[in-house]
Every structure is written in structure tokens, then in C-alpha cells.
């Protein structure tokens, strides 16, 4: 394992948590569908994607614990941090809504993840590169799955078109956050660990535009993008997610399960 030396442990830990938190929260949201999907085959597909995402989070948290060097494991990160210490994208924590809302949220993040993990698989941090290479196979499949649903719904019936267009309009305010960067990102880029997120946008745009065109959907505009997830400014939804997610560890602290 060669961790980049020209970045401090704290920054790399923080970066890994940003990645892991988005995976876990999105996986958690998807798992809420289990048993309630529109058709059995789709129930199984969504569970598979949720399992991939939870798996990614576990790898990233475990590695974050190693980098941090303070003895924290995957469960410490997942169950013992309060809202403002979470660093996931706001998009990931949005409620499931109807199937259209879930698939739009998924598709927007899947497209981002494909570009992100493609780049991270070439990271100078070999451990992160290995996690990214594994994740890339998964998110490539996720994008194919969600992209096809966007097309089916957009170019399906009047009702499905209306629902998916509305979901797209509702979620578009969270898109800019995907590509937003701060000082931490600059340090990550400088150390060759991860990409400049802004540089991922053209590829993301062209993928999304291609699918929206085939789906006969209109790309929304937004004047007031929302952001702040990566630095702990979340929507109210996250607190409710955590009160479920962390219930056992909070109610019965320090026990083995």
C-alpha cells in the first residue's frame, strides 16, 4: 500500500468519507425499496445495486480507518457520527418518492460515479485505485440500469413521461454540487489522488444529454443550485435517515452484534 505522502492523513480520511458517505446513504435509500418494488425482477435489481453501494462504503470506511490511524472501523464511521459530520452529496439523501424520483436520483449519481471511479482507478493511492477499479464495474452496470429506466419512462406513457420529467426538474438543483470543489479537492488533485471534479462535467453532460434526448426529456435549468453536503450542511432528511440507521448502536452502545 502506497499512500500518497504529500497529503496529510486527515485530508485523505475526509476525502474517503465523502466517497463512502454518498455510497452508504444512497444504498440505504435504495434498500428502503426492498419488498416494495414495482415488479419482483426490479426489486431484486435494486437490492443488488444497494448491496454494491453498501459494499463500496464498507471498503472506503475501512480504508479511511486505516489512513486515519485512530482505530475507527467501518461501523464507527457509519453509526457514531451526527448529521454535520456526514459528507455525502445532498442528492443521495433525497427521499425515494416514486419510482421515477428514485431512478432520476440514481441516474444522475451513476453517471457521476462512472466518471469519478474511472478517474480514481488511476489514483496514485494504490489502495484507493483498487477500490475504485472494483467499484467502476459496479457503477457502470448501475448506470446502464438506471439509464434504461429513464429512457423507458421518458419515452413510455404520458404518465411516466410526466413523472420522470417532474423528478428531473425536482432533483436538478442538486446537480451542480456533484462538480463543486474546495480546498480539500485541490489538495487531492495536487497529490494525484483524485480528479478535479469540474473536469468530469463535460463527460457527465454528454452522457446525461444523450439519455435525456432518447428519453424525449427536457434538460432542466436551475438558478438556485443547492450544495453543502460534503461539508456537513445537509437537508433535514439526513437526520431521519440516521435515526433509523444508528438506532441500535445509539440505544445499545458498545455491544457486539
Amino acid at each position: 500500500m502506497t499512500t500518497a505522502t504529500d497529503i496529510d492523513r486527515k485530508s485523505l480520511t475526509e476525502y474517503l468519507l465523502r466517497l463512502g458517505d454518498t455510497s452508504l446513504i444512497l444504498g440505504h435509500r435504495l434498500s428502503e425499496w426492498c419488498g416494495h418494488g414495482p415488479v419482483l425482477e426490479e426489486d431484486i435489481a435494486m437490492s443488488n445495486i444497494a448491496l454494491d453501494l453498501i459494499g463500496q462504503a464498507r471498503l472506503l470506511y475501512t480504508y479511511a480507518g486505516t489512513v486515519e490511524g485512530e482505530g475507527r472501523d467501518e461501523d464507527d464511521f457509519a453509526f457514531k457520527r451526527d448529521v454535520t459530520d456526514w459528507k455525502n452529496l445532498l442528492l443521495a439523501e433525497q427521499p425515494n418518492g416514486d419510482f421515477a424520483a428514485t431512478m432520476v436520483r440514481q441516474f444522475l449519481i451513476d453517471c457521476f460515479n462512472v466518471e469519478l471511479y474511472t478517474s480514481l482507478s488511476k489514483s496514485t493511492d494504490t489502495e484507493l485505485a483498487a477500490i475504485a477499479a472494483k467499484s467502476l464495474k459496479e457503477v457502470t452496470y448501475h448506470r446502464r440500469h438506471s439509464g434504461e429506466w429513464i429512457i423507458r419512462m421518458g419515452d413510455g406513457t404520458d404518465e411516466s413521461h410526466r413523472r420522470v420529467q417532474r423528478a428531473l426538474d425536482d432533483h436538478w438543483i442538486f446537480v451542480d454540487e456533484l462538480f463543486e470543489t474546495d480546498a480539500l479537492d485541490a489538495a487531492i488533485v495536487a497529490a494525484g489522488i483524485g480528479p478535479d471534479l469540474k473536469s468530469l462535467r463535460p463527460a457527465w453532460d454528454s452522457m446525461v444529454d444523450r439519455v435525456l434526448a432518447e428519453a424525449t426529456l427536457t434538460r432542466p435549468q436551475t438558478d438556485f443550485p443547492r450544495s453543502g453536503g460534503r461539508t456537513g450542511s445537509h437537508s433535514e432528511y439526513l437526520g431521519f435517515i440516521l435515526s433509523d440507521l444508528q438506532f441500535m448502536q445509539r440505544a445499545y452502545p458498545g455491544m457486539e452484534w
Partner: protein
Amino acid sequence: MPASSREWPLWEIFVRSRQGLSHKHVGSLRAVDAEMAIQNARDVYTRRREGESIWVVEASHIHASQPESRGPFFDPADDKIYRHPTFYDVPDGVENM
């Protein structure tokens, strides 16, 4: 919801468990087209890495022999024992045959 909502077509799924073997029928599922059938088959029938290749066939496209004509159809093969190698005597000591 009206009970009459239309049902997705039924697909029969065949999986090749590893290189060198033929595809084997594993079950069925429902999907709107071949693309979806393949994706669903991947999630339904290969969750434990049971396969490396998938065939999907819309069930209505499968033609089968008639069970009632099983006798005339298959029995005539019963007495063609000369099609099996054990039918033939080979002298002791002959190898590689």
C-alpha cells in the same frame, strides 16, 4: 387498479455456468424486451456468479415435441443398440479404441 393491466412477456433463461459447457435452462422471468430479460436474468439467476453467459428466449417462441407422441417419436431409438460402442466386441489386449 384494474386487474386487466397488461402482463410483461415470459422469457426462458439459459445460463452457461462456465466456458466449455453448453447453456442450460435455469428458469423463467418476465421482461418487456430481450435487453431487460438479460439484465433481469443477471440479477435473478447469476447473483452467486453461477454463469458467464446468458441466453434469453421469449417463451412463446419455443416449439416443443408433443408428449402424446413420445412413443412413436422416441421409442424407435431404443433398439438401435449398434449406435453405442458397447455393442461391439473387441479382442482382449486391443487398446486405444
